[in-house]
C-alpha cells in the first residue's frame, strides 16, 4: 500500500467541500478520481498535497503518518488551469525543473519529445495553446522524483491523438516506480487509462475499486463507467 487517506474533510465557511473522504492508493497503479463538477476533486488534491489545510483526516504513506508539511516528500500535485512563468520559453522551464529537482540533464527534452513539444521549445509558455501548455506541465510533473503524482485533469485541452499518446506515456511512468492519481472528468478516458477508480460525489467517496468491483457495487454487471457512476451517485 502506498497511501491511505482516512476521514478527510474540508469546509469553506458553511460549504462542506469534502466530507469524511477515505480511499487507498496502491504502489505503481493508475488511480482515477472521477466526479461531477463541484464534487471536490481539486480540493481533495490540494488537501492531499498539503497546499490547503484540511479540517480533519489522516494520510498514511507506506505505513507512516504523513503530516501536511511533509507531503512534498512523497507526492507532487499538478494543478489544472495554471500557466506558470508565461514570459519564459518552454526549454528554460524544463531546464529549470531539471535543475531544481537534480534530474539528469536532457531528461526534460526527452519528455518534451515524447509529448511532442520539441518544436515548441523556443516558444513562450504564454504563447502556447491550452493543449500545448498542458503537455508542458505534464513534462514538468514527470521531471519530479516523487513516487506519487497527482494530476488534475491531465487530458483537458488535448485532442484524441494527444490524449492517447499522453496516456501511453503515463502508462509507462509506473514502470519507473511512479504511481499516478488522476482527476478526470471524461469518464471514457478514465475507464481506459486507470487501473482503479475513486468516485467522488458532493465531497464524499461513493465508490472505490476496479471497474468490475464498481459494477458489482452498483449491481450492474455489464454497465459502462457512466452508468455505474450514475447508479452510485443517484
Amino acid at each position: 500500500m502506498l497511501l491511505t487517506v482516512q476521514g478527510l474533510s474540508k469546509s469553506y465557511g458553511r460549504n462542506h467541500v469534502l466530507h469524511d473522504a477515505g480511499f487507498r492508493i496502491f504502489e505503481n497503479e493508475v488511480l482515477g478520481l472521477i466526479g461531477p463538477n463541484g464534487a471536490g476533486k481539486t480540493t481533495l488534491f490540494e488537501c492531499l498535497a498539503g497546499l490547503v489545510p484540511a479540517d480533519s483526516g489522516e494520510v498514511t504513506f507506506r505505513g507512516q503518518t504523513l503530516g501536511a508539511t511533509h507531503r512534498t516528500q512523497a507526492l507532487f500535485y499538478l494543478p489544472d488551469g495554471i500557466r506558470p512563468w508565461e514570459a519564459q520559453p518552454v526549454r528554460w522551464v524544463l531546464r529549470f525543473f531539471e535543475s531544481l529537482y537534480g534530474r539528469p540533464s536532457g531528461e526534460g527534452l526527452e519528455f518534451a519529445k515524447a509529448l511532442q513539444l520539441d518544436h515548441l521549445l523556443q516558444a513562450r509558455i504564454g504563447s502556447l495553446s491550452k493543449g500545448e501548455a498542458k503537455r508542458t506541465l505534464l513534462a514538468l510533473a514527470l521531471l519530479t522524483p516523487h513516487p506519487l503524482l497527482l494530476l488534475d485533469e491531465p487530458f483537458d485541452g488535448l485532442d484524441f491523438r494527444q490524449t492517447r499518446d499522453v496516456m501511453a506515456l503515463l502508462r509507462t511512468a509506473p514502470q519507473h516506480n511512479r504511481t499516478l492519481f488522476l482527476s478526470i472528468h471524461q469518464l471514457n478516458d478514465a475507464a481506459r487509462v486507470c487501473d482503479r477508480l475513486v468516485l467522488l460525489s458532493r465531497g464524499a467517496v461513493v465508490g472505490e475499486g476496479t471497474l468490475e468491483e464498481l459494477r458489482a457495487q452498483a449491481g450492474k454487471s455489464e454497465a459502462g463507467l457512466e452508468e455505474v457512476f450514475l447508479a452510485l451517485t443517484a
Partner: protein
Amino acid sequence: MRSRLSRAVLLFGKEWRELTASRAFWLLLAIIGPLVGHGFITAVETYAEASGGAGGAPGALAQGLSPLDGVLVPTFGAYDLAVTLLFPFVAIRLVSAEKSSGAWKLMLQSPASLTQMLLAKGAALLAGWSVAWIPGLLALGLWKTYGGTLYPPETLNLLAGHLLHAGLATGVAVAAAALADSAASAAIVTLGFTVGTWALEFVAAGRGGLLQKLASYTPTSALRVFEQGQLRLSTLAVTLVLTLAGFALAAVWLDPRRRTVERVVRSIAVCAVAAGLLFTSAELRPTWDVSENRRNSFPLADERALNRIRQPLHVTVYLAPEDPRLLDLNREVLSKLDRVLPGMAIDYAARSRAGLFEGPAERYGEVWYELGGRKVMSRSATEEIVLETIYRLAGIAPPSHAGELEYPGHPLAARPTGANWIFYVLWPLVVALSGWVHFRHRSRT
C-alpha cells in the same frame, strides 16, 4: 540533492529572468535616466551660479558650498521618487505574477524553502535596483570629470541611505503582494502605506511626542538623516527591522498551507517581535557625523572640552513642538550635544500644541540646563551661547578655537557638459535597445 548555494543561484536566476521579463522594470530603467539627469543638470547649474560662475553670486556665498547639498542630494532625489512611485510595482509583480499564474503552487512543492524563495526575490530586486543606479553613478563620474569634489564617507552614506530606502520599499511591496489577492490590490496597499507615512509626517509636524518620534522613521524622514550626512544607528536599525518585518509577513501570507487563523496569529507574532525590535532600535544613541563640513557636530575643540564633563546634563525645554525655535535648538544644539554627552537627558516640558498659551506661561521660551545640582536658564538657540552656558555650569574654561580650520567649501563653476546627451538621449536609447534585444531574443528562444 542540490547544495544550498547552487539552489540559491538557480532561484536567483529564475527571479532575475522574471524581473527582466517585466515591462515595468524596463520602464523604470528608461525613466530613471532622464529623472536623474534633470536633477543632476539643474544641480550643477545652480551650484555653478552659487559658486560665482557666469557673473552669479558673490564669492562669499561660494564659501562653505558643499557638493553633498548642492549636487549629490538633488541628483539622487530622483531615486526617492522612483522608489516611492515606480519600484514597488516592479517588486509587486515579482510576487503577484507567480501567485496568479499558479507557479507559486509548483514552487511551494519544490525542494526550495519559502525563505530561500523570498531571499532570491529580494536579491533579484536588489540586483535590478543596482542596474537602476547606473545613471546616478554616471552622474557622480561626470561630476568628478568637471573637477567636482566627492567626500567618500558622505557619498557612501548617502548611497547607503538610498539602498535602505529601496530595501524598505521592497519589504512593504512584497508584504502587500503576499497579503493582497491581486497585483492591483497590492499596489493600492503599497500606495496607501506611502500616503499614510506622508500623512503621519504632516500630522506629526509640530506635535512632538510619540507621533513626532514615529514620523522621524518614515522612509522620507529616514532618508533625510542620510542626506544630512549623518549615520544614525537607530535609523539604520529601524529601517532594517521594518524591511525584515515586511519579508516575514510575506513569508506568513505566501504559505497557503496554514489556516487563516494560524496566519493571523503568526502575523501578530511578527508584528509584536518587530515592535519590540523597533522600540529597542529607536533607543540606540550612536550617531556618526560623516559630513565633510561636520555640520552635525560642534567644533573639535568644543567636543574635546565637552568630553571632559563626566556628570549627566539635564535639559528642560519650555518650547512647544510647533515653535520654530525648538526646531533650531534641536538641530543646532541638542542633537549635537546628544552625540557628545551620551548621558544627557532632555525633557520637553511644553507638550501641547498651544504651548504659547499654556501654563506655566511665564516659563515659556526658557531652556534650563542642570549639571551637578546647579541650574542655569537660557533662551538662546545659538550654538555658541548654549555652549558657553554649559561651560559655565561645568566650571570649564571655553576652549580656544585658534588654529582650527574652517570648512573651505568646494565652489565649482562648471557647466554640465555632455550630461544632456548622456541622460536624455544616450541612456534612454541604451535602455530601449537593450530591452528590444532582450525581448526579441526571448521571443526567439
